[in-house]
């Protein structure tokens, strides 16, 4: 490829621009976890992990890890001043009660209606939904972080999801290695291109309805 598709850190860097001052944010496993590294220093944000912590800090230094302090990805973490621990029912109370402002998670497929599939490939992969179904059913503001196509080169932005759903009509925005896309009533609306990536490339990588209106600027990352 000659075009500058983003790598995982690039996607995370772009998503970090969506994180506003005063936001409580839940980050899923994978690319979403990387977002924390790129949030501006001059805004205040707190990260929630559904296993029961608010105010997560960076990973611990070697020797300072604590088996009793992990994130939802089971990684050892630290906490920042002002952090708190709580039980799982309270944690999902925060999520279901829409106290968490932004949820960023990965996906295997997203449909142009905002449906998302990310927990099961029948007969192949059955790891479970973890907290994802609660998060997508409850959050007002959901951003999906993913590659635009799967390993077989097939589009992950579809007319309709083919895999078992995680939630219906919930995704608002998608940031991929190729583009920033808004999910609208009419379909996927292209907002931004990755640097150097052509609209044609995005079009051919998008199976669902892609709406292109006006000039599509490159991401500013």
């Amino acid at each position, binding site marked *: 490829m000659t075009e500058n598709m983003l790598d995982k850190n690039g996607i995370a860097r772009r998503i970090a621009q969506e994180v506003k001052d005063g936001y409580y944010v839940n980050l899923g496993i994978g690319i979403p976890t990387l977002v924390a590294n790129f949030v501006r220093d001059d805004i205040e944000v707190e990260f929630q992990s559904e296993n029961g912590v608010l105010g997560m800090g*960076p990973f611990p230094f070697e020797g300072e890890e604590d088996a*009793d302090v992990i994130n939802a990805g089971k990684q050892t973490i630290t906490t920042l001043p002002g952090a708190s621990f709580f*039980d799982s*029912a309270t944690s999902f109370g925060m999520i279901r009660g829409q106290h968490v402002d932004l949820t960023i998670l990965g996906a295997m497929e997203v449909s142009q209606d905002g449906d998302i599939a990310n927990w099961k490939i029948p007969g192949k992969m059955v790891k479970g939904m973890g*907290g994802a179904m609660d998060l997508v059913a409850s959050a007002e503001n959901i951003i999906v972080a993913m590659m635009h196509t799967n390993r077989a080169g097939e589009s992950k932005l579809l007319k309709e999801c083919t895999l078992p*759903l995680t*939630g219906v009509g919930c995704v608002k925005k998608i940031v991929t290695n190729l583009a920033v896309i808004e999910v609208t009533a009419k379909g996927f609306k292209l907002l931004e291109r990755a640097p150097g990536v052509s609209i044609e490339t995005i079009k051919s990588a998008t199976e669902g309805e892609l709406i292109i209106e006006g000039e599509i600027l490159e991401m500013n990352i």
Partner: protein
Amino acid sequence: MINKKVANISEALKGVSDNMTFMFGGFGLSGIPENAIAQLVKLNIKGLTCISNNAGVDDFGLGLLLQQKQVKKMISSYVGENDEFERQMLSGELDVELIPQGTLAERCRAAQSGFPAIYTPAGYGTEVAEGKETREFDGKMYVLEHAFKADFAFIKAWKGDAAGNLIFKGTARNFNPNMCGAAKVTVVEVEELVPVGTLDPNQIHIPGIFVQRIFQGETYEKRIEQLTIRQRA
């Protein structure tokens, strides 16, 4: 003060038998009742239904019960780090019910607090809601989910006293408090059993009324699943 302290692990697990339904606290390998699990392996009772967010790893946590084929059914939200689990599930030896994590937590809390069922938006429109009652409130759809019914809840706390009062540490808290009192018998193991009266009544996470038996665990491995560190500058 009503005394909940038992003499040893045998007394703590008195009454467990084949085909029962158990709840296990813990998230991943954090905050799991290591001593109760070890004893269940020793007792080798079979046909168990296990309600637990995760299924351990191959050689630790609930993976130990799976190894011995003691488990008939798992009710979990995420089971992705266990090859033996996957083998048993795909071969049909193991019955698996995957449910959203928040639903799992709240079905425990419902059992603890005397609610027969709850309405949650999680899983609406997905296969999780198939065959379940759904309902609209204020323009949003919810799924009716029922309180769990379990025989024993196995809980791991950090500190506790003979009155059954509990304090948890860090994210090892997770489902543990929500499962206390959610089964017919709640068995708690603690890292440290402290004298009654030493815990601040304001700072007790779970009052002893939700606990039937308590003991200090002999050893805790507290294995870390994903050791993740950063480099010193």
